[in-house]
């Protein structure tokens, strides 16, 4: 880590009176911590309030004035959330679609990234410019006309759209792979070519295994995209075949049709916890993913 204002750097210390600065610095750090703590509470607060809502009884939730803590934590809300709707079926759909898309898009993006990084061809530069500009293109722009088209050819309410999106590679992930592959020294593939290796084998047996960190990043990112996606399943899938995200957003109802808030909160907790756990264990992969999107190519 680069530390910009590091006090312990003796090399270029201007002739300032060091003892006079130290107390100010300590006070500074205290203020910084106070600020950071406040912000941390603001950022983490919504998670806490979700879990607290999930642990309340229905009357506790609507009580006025609002209660912060439940009288006794209602763990039963979680089991009820699993049975109130067909939770496991929606969970299965979510897992299946996320996995399917993540595997396909990771592999196709790796291949395309390899092509842009290591191969030459007519029109490669303009193609790459097109690829980069589609990174900026909002998904929603093509999603609605895609839905209209797919409805006409009977692809709605099937999982085929996700297969096609997976096979089509993601410009963002292509860019991720391309940057990684472009940095690998040419000697590696030269040696393979001398050994009579074709580019198919060079890709599969040399470059793909080398790119394991990018493969993991790509898989995790694309998995969480699909897991968290709402608009595509809401548009393309019937309520019976839809994903957990759509189910949680709308299916928890009391007999009067009003939202069953505490159960919904419990379900949302179950839905978000896997993402948070994956994130906490694989944070560096997510950071790698975010970074490649923020640095101009």
């Amino acid at each position, binding site marked *: *880590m680069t530390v*910009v*204002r*590091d006090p312990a750097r003796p090399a*270029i210390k*201007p002739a300032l009176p060091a003892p006079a600065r130290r107390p100010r610095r300590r006070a500074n750090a205290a203020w*910084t*911590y106070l600020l950071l703590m406040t*912000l*941390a509470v603001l*950022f*983490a607060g919504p*998670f806490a*309030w*979700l879990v607290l809502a999930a642990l309340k009884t229905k009357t506790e*939730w*609507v009580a*006025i*004035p*609002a209660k*912060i803590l439940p009288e006794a934590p209602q763990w039963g809300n979680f089991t009820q959330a699993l049975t109130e709707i067909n939770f496991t079926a929606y969970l299965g759909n979510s897992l299946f679609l996320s996995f399917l898309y993540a595997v396909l898009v990771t592999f*196709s*993006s790796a291949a*395309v990234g390899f*092509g842009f990084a290591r191969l030459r*061809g007519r029109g490669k530069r303009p*193609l790459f410019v097109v690829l980069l500009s589609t990174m*900026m*293109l909002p998904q929603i*722009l093509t999603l*609605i*006309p*895609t839905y*209209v*088209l797919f409805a006409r050819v009977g692809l709605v309410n099937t999982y085929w759209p996700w297969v*096609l999106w997976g096979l089509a*590679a993601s*410009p963002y992930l292509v860019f991720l792979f391309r940057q990684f592959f*472009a940095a690998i020294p040419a000697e590696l593939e*030269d040696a393979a*070519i*001398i*050994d*009579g290796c074709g*580019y198919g084998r060079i890709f599969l047996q040399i470059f793909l295994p080398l790119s394991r960190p990018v493969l993991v990043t790509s898989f995790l990112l694309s998995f969480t995209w699909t897991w*968290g996606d709402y*608009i595509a399943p*809401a548009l393309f899938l019937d309520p019976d075949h839809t994903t957990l995200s*759509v189910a*949680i*957003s709308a299916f928890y*109802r009391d007999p009067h049709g009003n939202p069953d*808030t505490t159960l919904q909160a419990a379900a949302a907790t179950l839905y978000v916890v896997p*993402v948070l756990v994956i994130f*906490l264990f694989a*944070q560096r992969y997510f950071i790698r993913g975010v*970074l490649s*999107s*923020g*640095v101009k190519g």
Partner: protein
Amino acid sequence: MEAERARRGRRRWSRYPSRTFYLFVSPWVLGFALLTALPLGYALLVSFTNFNGRNSRWRWVGMRNYTELVRDADVIASLVRTLAYTAITVPLMVAGGLGLAVLLNRRLKAVGLFRTIFFLPSVVPVVAMAIMWKLIFNRDAGILNAILEKVSVGPIAWLVDPNAFYALIILTLWGLGGGMVIMLAALQSVPVELEEAAVVDGASRWHVFRHVTVPMISPVIFFQVVTGVIASFQIIIQPLLLAESNQVGSVALVPQSTHLYMVQVYEEFFNNNRYGFGSAMLWVFFLVILAITLVVQRSSRLWVHYQVDSEAER
């Protein structure tokens, strides 16, 4: 054969001509043609018709959808709201991300923990995010009004007009940790010597930040602004999910103040069955995004400092 390959190693691409390249990039090329270009082209065609989604008896109406669109009060209002939303959120997101990054870019205890906490919301799926914030903004049971009541404010009905707009902005700002991570990496890429040199020359911390650090990371700030503008123009799910809705993907109950441009498009398509009109709106949106990107890119030369870097040309 092997020897010849070795000899011609530098020019191997001439014997593996474009074919291999196209074989590798074909998934994306085909995908782009079928899943991006085709739908966009289809939308362009439909935008010149009165197609209603079901009836096959549509006819060409020329530019009528476009001329109606610029006179449609609902469309204009949704566009103005989207511009306001963008003008408020993008500067706050970028400045907030930079601010957090500056706070965390020093040797403090538990800096990693804070970074994780701030970054975490940006990976939360949008459905969970909306549910969480609806619990907070709930008029009677929400914690926000409970806190405000302590200082004798409220209760405020956050999720209806006109407050829903501010609720949406707060929800958006909660996710600024993604930008923070990018800013943090940018700050750490600034050569320490440069800032130290400025300190030696007697510059204050603010001056170093303003005249050394910010210019050095201005390409990243610029990129954040562009992606931020585009991201906020396409907002649709958050207003949909924050609204009190009783069916999947319904825009019927989205409050006026969060009835943004894409919500309007969605309504034209799926509530009013005006596919032609909705497609025209999509194309206007597409052209606006292109224009913004171009304008911002042009104007960036005035204030963005790019370090001369041959690596970037590769």
